């Protein structure tokens, strides 16, 4: 396997990156979808799928702890042969590629609606591509550190919006408490756990963690932090916009929340300021996904570097971006495909590789040290 060299990722930086990645969906249509699915109990759906994700991620974590110096692809190759390795790499590549493209298209459309109504989408996309190419050229170390540095601003922006719209919140909108009923919520949970599927990236970052033993803490912290913030957001959103409208009428929940802010004469119409937070978080998200796309391809092809692939893959993303017909298609792909079936790859693939490794690896790997760790 190629030895792709990167720097070191500390615990906080890793959590910052993954948490921001997972929270980013808050800025797109996701809260609407959840609200549509769970009715007045949308926030309960989020809690349920958070729980499901926390459990579903366990086999993958076991794998990472067992082979701390290798990525998912390398483990798959070692125990399943070259074909399996390439297959796993391609699946990862496809998953990350699809996520990148869908999120990018949704976001660029949002920018047009919210900020730059007359600018052609291609220009917006090109600048967005620049914003994600540079961090990947710099490497994952810079990206995680940047994410950690921007974390306070995210927190400030997100909680700022949520706090400032509280005057419009009406707790009565949260009832009936169970929404469509407990069984429906429980049913929605597993499928929607795909919303947290991007945690899959950790299988590629694992070897670069400064403290590899902390991988469980990294994964769990990012899942729980982002899950709880998501819950809170949906909760506030549903308190401000009552159910049927919250599910069907509103395309960009966070943007609409921010538009509501009116705090005296001077703190109003601040949604443009929050654009900063949105752009930052989307860029972190897409850069990380893009990194995942390229690195899984590079590792699958046994390349010692991934940077030469960045530009070609960016071009690929750019073209795929425009294959999506329009914004509703992108939103539909996001809600109905990626967020319903994404778990198969996000949680299923690591679990499968874990099973494979468990069956094939008799005792040798229990210490996590292998002679050929970069062979």
């Amino acid at each position, binding site marked *: 396997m190629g030895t792709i060299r990167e720097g070191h990722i500390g615990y906080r930086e890793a959590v910052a990156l993954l948490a921001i990645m997972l929270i980013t969906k808050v800025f797109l249509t996701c809260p609407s979808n959840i609200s549509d699915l769970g009715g007045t109990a949308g926030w309960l759906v989020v809690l349920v799928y958070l729980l499901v994700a926390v459990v579903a991620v366990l086999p993958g974590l076991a794998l990472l702890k067992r082979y701390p110096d290798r990525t998912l692809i390398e483990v798959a190759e070692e125990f399943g042969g070259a074909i399996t390795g390439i297959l796993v790499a391609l699946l990862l590549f496809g998953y990350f590629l699809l996520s990148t493209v869908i999120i990018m298209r949704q976001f660029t459309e949002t920018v047009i609606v919210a900020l*730059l109504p007359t600018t052609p989408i291609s220009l917006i996309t090109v*600048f967005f591509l620049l*914003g994600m190419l540079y*961090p990947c050229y710099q490497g994952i170390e810079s990206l995680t550190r*940047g994410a950690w540095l921007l974390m306070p601003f995210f927190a400030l922006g997100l909680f700022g919006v949520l706090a400032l719209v509280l005057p419009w919140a009406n707790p009565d909108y949260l009832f009936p408490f169970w929404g469509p009923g407990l069984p429906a919520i429980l049913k929605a949970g597993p499928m929607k756990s795909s919303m947290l599927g991007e945690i899959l990236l950790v299988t590629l970052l694992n070897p670069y963690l400064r403290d590899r033993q902390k991988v469980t803490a990294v994964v769990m912290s990012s899942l729980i932090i982002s899950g709880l913030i998501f819950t809170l957001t949906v909760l506030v959103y549903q308190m401000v916009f009552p159910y049927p409208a919250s599910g069907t009428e509103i395309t960009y929940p966070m943007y609409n929340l921010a538009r509501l802010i009116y705090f005296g004469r001077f703190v109003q119409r601040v949604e*443009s300021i929050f654009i900063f937070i949105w*752009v930052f978080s989307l*860029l972190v998200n897409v850069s990380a996904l893009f990194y995942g796309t390229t690195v899984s391809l590079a590792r699958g092809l046994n390349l010692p570097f991934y940077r030469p692939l960045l530009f070609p893959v960016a071009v690929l993303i750019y073209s795929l971006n425009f294959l999506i017909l329009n914004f509703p298609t992108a939103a539909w792909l996001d809600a109905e495909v990626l967020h319903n079936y994404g778990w198969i790859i996000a949680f299923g693939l690591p679990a499968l590789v874990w099973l494979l490794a468990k069956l094939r690896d008799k005792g040798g790997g229990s210490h996590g040290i292998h002679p050929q760790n970069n062979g």
Partner: protein
Amino acid sequence: MSIWSKIKAIFTIDDYYMDETFSLGDRPIRQSPQEGQGQSKQESGKAESSKPESGKPQKRGGFVLPKKPLKTSESREKAKKQTKSSGKGEKEEQSHPGSETEQINHSREIYSNLSKNLEKLKARFHIPPNIDVIIREFTIPLEPQLKGAIAFMEGLASRDTINSHVLMPLMLLSNLDEKGRNANPVSIVMERLLPGNQVEIKDSFDDLMEGILTGTTMVLLDGYPTGLLVETKGWEHRTVSRPNVENVVRGPQEAFVEHIRVNTALVRKRLHCNTLVTEMFKLGRLSNVHCALLYIEGLTNPKLVAEVRRRIKGIDTDYISDTGTLEQFIEDNPASLLPGQLSTERPDRVAAALAEGHVAMLVDGDPFALIMPVTFWSLIHTAEDAYIRWPYGSLLRAIRILALFINLLLPSFYISIVNFHPEMIPTDLLLAIAASRESIPFPAIWEVVMMELAFDLIREAGIRIPSIIGPTLGIVGALILGQAAVAANIVSPLLVIIVALTGLGSFAIPNYGLTAAMRTLRFVFLFLSAFLGFYGLAIGVFLVVIHICGQKSVGVPIMSPVSPFRPPSGDVVYRQPVWKQEQRPVFMRPLARRRQPKITRPWATQLKEGEDRQNQDTNTGKQDTNAEQQDTNAEQQDTNAEQQDTNAEQQDTNAEQQDTKGGKQDGDN
């Protein structure tokens, strides 16, 4: 010239005037074999080979193939070794083999024959035409009489010292002494006749030359193949004066000067400890300037010292004269936006940095020191932050961060809002802006760029302007920027406020390198926001954040200890009270992490549990009593901080095991 020929010349069409033009490039000038004495053989060889080509039209056309194969790093190393082993300026194989005298002149040997030596000296220093080296021959009235000569560099050596401490004893006082006649005259001269405080015997002619070049006086005796170097340095330099750039209200008011030994002394007088080490290097083949590397042995991470030493030693160039040039040779990433070193003119800042485990560099002739490694946060620190009480210090830093943001983003914000997001502005303000912009014929971006450029012009002119006509600049600037531009409806009054605030913001940033970076970025952001509004600006800011997070200064991430996160040392933006800053910054990986014991103010009444802790920890007891003395005089605490360090060092030996463990981890990382 007769009058007829002059008239004839008017009607003659020829190229005679072409004869008078002078060009460096047209005809190769034959290099004399002695030229480029300080240069290595390869350098001069290169110069010769490239000379005939330069200026010729053939070069313009396309590729000019190098006649010699390109130097690989390996061959360069080799060549370097060669020049080193064969001594500076020595050329064994000249392009012209050279006569015998030439060979003599380029050997390292000192001859017994004085006149031969002097001849060689003259040849080496190109006397004549060079007049800077003064050679004085004389006779020492020993038994038997001895011929001698001294040589020194005019201006670098102190005339008085030479007259009274070299010439006088040798020429006048040497016949007073009767004892030790049979001894070797060299040792007599060395031990009895030269009362200078530094006298060295040298066997190599190159050492003697180097001594003369740095202001010492060479003494040669006829009949003996050795030379003496007497310390007589005494060139003119500025006296220590107030800092020009880094002024403070409270704290020491002295700055470095252009003399390296004065500068090292300025640092040393703040760190009276035997562990402060000054290493000297020579930089530049032609400039041969002294460069000092300062660190505290046993505190500064040896890996850091070794790396900086390696970088300094690796420099292979002809001319370095200041820290600004040196900085560019040794920085981690030349493409980085932020400076990789902290440049300061304050000895107290250098001393404080050394006590934290940094290394510092001084270059002779430059009144600035370089502190390495640097973090982004130290670029917005000033020395004063530590000298005033902590709440004010923290506030000052917060204001500076605000200044940074204002300086960087305010114009772009204005452009974005006016161009793309006018809905953000409350109605009344919007009307005011619209009214003020109504009569302006330019788009907002054009207006901003114009004003920013005007401001930068004034700033640049203000630096370069002769100080006599300085006050005029203020009038011109204020009139142009303030009154006239608004009155002429070229810019809106609001914009004047914004540009003024931006300018103030940039002046509040204490580091010149950081200001320059922000100034550059400001224009980039301006265009991004003029192009894409907040969206473009946000992407720009994000890229800059990612860029900065990837930068390192001698291996230390420049955003530490915030990102990557390290346990804070209480001295980042929020500044803890001095007595609470017990640990040195972790990212420096100092050998001794603790700078003072847990309890530094045992007398404090609110510290009742402190006594219990003190009793528990017998080790810290000693230090605490030391600390007590210091702390009784709370005002002196800052100046005593260094002493505390030395005290704390003993204690650190306890913690050292931990630290070495940490060091191992660092090695892994």
